[in-house]
């Protein structure tokens, strides 16, 4: 027999060839014609189509001629998937007439009041009309009339006369936000968008409809008439309202921020923003902004405005007079990476104190943040299962909630939630494990066991066995498929040990080696803060003091030698008089520390209190020195979102008064204290970080500037935790005094104190406290943004109506809420979604907040 050589396989073609206006293009299977055309340089006009929403083919503006069995015919390009050999004509006379016709129809009832319209100058309808549109109107009859702008929510107004019924806002509200509170009503020529009577479009995402409206029908009350699009000038930046890090453009007019627009960053926000992020720019120009340094002769004495040098010298002198262990830094989780690096150098290199903590006892330990295998936001959409083990994402990280919702609805990823009551995510969960407050770790262990084939027979940790087993089944399915389990880890309730949540996550990680963790903490740059070493015992690059000693000794000369105190420790030390100088970096311990009494004692007792901040708050009000910091859009730099993505922040307006960026303040103080960092521009620090901090090796200023990195740079977070070691030179090679670049090693064990049994089972009359954040609270930024401040609901204590009746009281009655640690008087609100035996108080919603009632013990 003879061998016949097999003919070489021709490489398979994965794209389809489509001819658009005579030119062949390569399109991807399933791609829509309108998208393929745009991607290859042919813009087909459209109004209703939006790349992030399902296609409806309503406006008919995108009609083009497409080849078919019966020859060329007019088809909407937004509904046409490309096909091999498809021939398309977007310019023929037929197409032109059809498109002009549609445009004319859309203008028939459109007021054409462009000169007074917010959208004027950036209006697709106006542009189309100018570019392609028919001349003077052939429509002599009377146009449709509607009452001029009507409010459909506290933030959004609707002008139905301008509306062209493209279904974008209504689709967004249902498909993306899951708040179908606006809808088409009536029929035909009387169709309009509206809400149900007296049922406003109260959605955390309402601002997005203003952005996607292709005409000026939807306008935002915080923006309307503030500026005309053509005198806007804009830069791209990152929203710092929470840790999702949505990409935005910041627009200003006459050195005032007028508007934020979402940018479609594929790995992050898809163009969406939450209303807090979109509108809290109002606080930048708030009259209450701190605008000049002030000092007090003594605590309680009147504050006097002074020059920066006077203030800085006062601080330097004071700090010099203490030894390192007596000085502490609290906060900084909202600053830029550059600010944080400069502060860490000031504290750990110059002052040699390790008492530095970016968190306020309301977060997770650095170990938990950095020790787990890491997930990205995109992992949500491809995971085998998602486990929510922390706060209500809709309240704390709204756009992450949108990505979760997309994963759960569009991508059908099953979601398991651990919660004490219903959350914004509950409707999208396959199982909502309702644990008894304090017993999340026990419940999680039970779910992990169920996943491993040991179903629960009875209630565990307050959770019903069938729910535990349902949750277990979801995880088991993901494990069997060898798919990732993404645990979104945060602090579900401030009244609960952070350790409980970490321990819960550990049981899940032990259940499946495919478990990855997405840390869900709200402050915008907590990730950066920990990367930069703003945590006791850490140095930049996620290394411990000992691990990084050689490395940083080489770069900084010196580092602390003993592990310092965390925030609760510093407050305790201050209260005890052993810690004498406290520097608050945009921190408000009174509002945020889970032990109000301790915070009060600490702040009144500490000898020397410095606050660097943008806005006044209860904690910085009495500081001996207050330094005004430049805030959002007033300074540039970089920030790191919760998945470890470094993106650029840009300054757009000049800082109020003499406010300065924090990195400058830190460098000044260092200089006075004898160390010259040599930073002239913020970019010098970005470069220094990239050069010195191994985890940030790639994140140089010019790398961040590259268009390839438009979505930022995702820091390497290997599936095992980093540990840095100074590596001894290999045999033979002569020892260089350059410390070797740290290399990867085994994961660091995560230390958690078991919480089992810690929570006393209360007698039948006492309640368990649950307290977590809501989007609109008494935070200084929300409160100095008038449009949002009015949305904050007054504090209440929410109870199951059964509990209220049991005590023969009524909703609205004032009650004294008493705990081992303190008490609080609030009106009661009935909430039958809560389990009995639980009292819910939203965090930081009353001047004396829920943290009156708890301590971190």
């Amino acid at each position, binding site marked *: 027999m003879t061998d016949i050589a097999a003919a070489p396989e021709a490489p398979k073609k994965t794209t389809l060839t489509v001819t658009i206006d005579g030119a062949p293009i390569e399109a991807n299977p399933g791609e829509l014609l309108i998208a393929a055309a745009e991607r290859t340089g042919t813009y087909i006009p459209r109004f209703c189509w939006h790349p992030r929403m399902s296609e409806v083919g309503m406006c008919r503006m995108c009609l083009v001629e497409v080849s078919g069995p019966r020859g060329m015919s007019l088809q909407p390009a937004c509904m046409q998937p490309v096909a091999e050999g498809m021939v398309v004509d977007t310019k023929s006379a037929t197409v032109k007439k059809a498109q002009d016709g549609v445009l004319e129809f859309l203008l028939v009832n459109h007021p054409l009041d462009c000169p007074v319209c917010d959208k004027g100058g950036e209006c697709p309808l106006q542009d189309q009309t100018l570019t392609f549109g028919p001349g003077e109107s052939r429509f002599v009859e009377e146009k449709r009339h509607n009452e001029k702008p009507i409010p459909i929510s506290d933030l959004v107004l609707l002008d139905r006369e301008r509306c062209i019924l493209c279904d974008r806002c209504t689709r967004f509200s249902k498909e993306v936000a899951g708040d179908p*509170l606006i809808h088409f*009503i009536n*029929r035909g020529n009387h169709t309009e968008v509206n*809400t*149900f*009577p007296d049922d406003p479009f109260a959605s955390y995402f309402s601002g997005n409809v203003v952005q996607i409206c292709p005409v000026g029908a939807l306008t935002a009350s915080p923006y309307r008439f503030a500026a005309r699009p053509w005198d806007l000038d804009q830069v791209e930046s990152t929203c710092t309202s929470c840790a999702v890090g949505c990409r935005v453009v910041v627009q200003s007019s006459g050195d005032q921020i007028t508007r934020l627009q979402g940018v479609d960053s594929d790995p992050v926000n898809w163009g969406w923003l939450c209303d807090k992020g979109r509108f809290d720019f109002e606080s930048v120009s708030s009259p209450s902004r701190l605008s000049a340094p002030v000092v007090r002769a003594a605590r309680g004495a009147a504050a006097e405005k002074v020059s920066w040098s006077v203030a800085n010298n006062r601080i330097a002198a004071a700090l010099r007079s203490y030894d390192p262990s007596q000085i502490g830094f609290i906060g900084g989780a909202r600053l830029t990476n550059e600010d944080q690096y400069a502060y860490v150098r000031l504290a750990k290199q110059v002052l040699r104190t390790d008492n530095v903590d970016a968190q306020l006892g309301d977060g997770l330990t650095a170990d938990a943040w950095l020790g787990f295998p890491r997930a990205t936001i995109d992992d949500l959409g491809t995971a085998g299962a998602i486990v929510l083990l922390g706060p209500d994402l809709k309240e704390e990280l709204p756009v992450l909630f949108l990505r979760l919702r997309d994963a759960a609805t569009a991508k059908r990823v099953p979601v398991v939630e651990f919660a004490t009551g219903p959350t914004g995510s509950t409707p999208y969960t396959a199982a909502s494990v309702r644990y008894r407050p304090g017993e999340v770790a026990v419940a999680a262990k039970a779910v992990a066991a169920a996943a491993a084939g040991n179903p629960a027979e009875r209630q565990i940790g307050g959770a019903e066995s069938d729910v535990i087993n349902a949750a277990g089944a979801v995880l088991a399915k993901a494990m069997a498929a060898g798919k990732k389990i993404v645990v979104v880890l945060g602090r579900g309730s401030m009244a609960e040990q952070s350790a409980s949540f970490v321990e819960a996550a550990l049981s899940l990680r032990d259940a499946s080696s495919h478990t990855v963790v997405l840390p869900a903490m709200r402050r915008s740059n907590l990730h950066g803060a920990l990367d930069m070493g703003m945590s006791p015992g850490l140095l930049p690059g996620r290394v411990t003091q000992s691990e990084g000693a050689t490395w940083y000794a080489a770069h900084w000369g010196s580092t602390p030698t003993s592990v310092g105190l965390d925030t609760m420790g510093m407050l305790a030390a201050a209260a005890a008089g052993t810690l004498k100088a406290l520097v608050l970096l945009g921190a408000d311990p009174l509002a945020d520390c889970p032990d109000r009494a301790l915070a009060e004692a600490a702040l009144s007792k500490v000898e020397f209190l410095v606050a660097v901040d943008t806005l006044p708050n209860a904690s910085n009000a009495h500081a001996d020195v207050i330094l005004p910091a430049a805030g959002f859009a007033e300074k540039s730099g970089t920030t790191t979102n919760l998945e470890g993505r470094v993106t650029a922040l840009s300054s757009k307006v000049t800082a109020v008064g003499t406010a300065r960026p924090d990195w400058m303040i830190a460098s000044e103080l260092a200089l006075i204290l004898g160390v010259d960092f040599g930073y002239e521009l913020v970019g010098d620090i970005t470069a220094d970080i990239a050069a010195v901090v191994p985890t940030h090796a790639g994140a140089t200023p010019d790398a961040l500037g590259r268009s390839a990195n438009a979505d930022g740079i995702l820091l390497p977070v290997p599936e095992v935790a980093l540990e840095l070691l100074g590596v001894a030179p290999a045999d033979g090679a002569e020892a260089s005094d350059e410390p070797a670049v740290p290399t990867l090693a085994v994961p660091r064990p995560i230390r958690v104190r078991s919480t089992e049994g810690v929570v006393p089972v209360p007698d039948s009359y006492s309640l368990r406290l649950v307290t977590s954040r809501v989007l609109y609270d008494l935070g200084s930024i929300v409160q100095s943004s008038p449009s949002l401040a009015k949305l904050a609901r007054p504090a209440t204590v929410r109870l199951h109506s059964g509990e209220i009746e049991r005590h023969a009281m009524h909703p609205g009655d004032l009650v004294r809420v008493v705990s081992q640690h303190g008490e609080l008087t609030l009106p009661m609100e009935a909430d039958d979604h809560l389990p009995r035996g639980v009292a819910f108080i939203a965090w930081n919603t009353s001047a004396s907040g829920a943290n009156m009632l708890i301590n971190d013990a």
Partner: protein
Amino acid sequence: MARFSPANLERAKELLSHYPRPKSATIPMCHLAQEQDGYLAEDAMGHIAELVGCSNAEVYGTATFYEMFKFHPVGTYVVGVCTNIACLLVGGEELLDHASDSLGIRPGATTPDGLFTLEEMECLAACTEAPCLQVNYRYENKVTHEGFDRLVADLRAGKRTDIPRHGTLGGVRQSIPADRRAGVKAI
């Protein structure tokens, strides 16, 4: 006005049991609510939203698409005169004109005594019986002007017991006996 009465709530639940998906019962439930109150009240729409599991706005969006649903009280008798092509050709407009004069109201309006609402209707599928009209959707065929006046007199005098008040859809309802049900599969 009102949410469903206990009796109607039972009927609403039976309607739910007829469909693979609850939202399909929206329109029949709107009819039920209109039968109860004479028009489609906001509270009723809210109740329907709860029952079919969607937002108030979604029920409102559906209901307002259909002409038979009225969102504020109308006359006890809604008189709809067809003026579409077949009726037009044999006196539909004249009939509407006459109705308007003798009731003293324009189409769309309701008589002060709240008894009659006059409407101009499109084709009623009775073209061979033109000119025709409906009272609460009950047909009157080949209507003369005298015939119209007699009809109105009889309605005023309560002689037309065959015509229920506005909103009442059918005198007979489909009801599937439990033991005969094949069983609707949810999807």
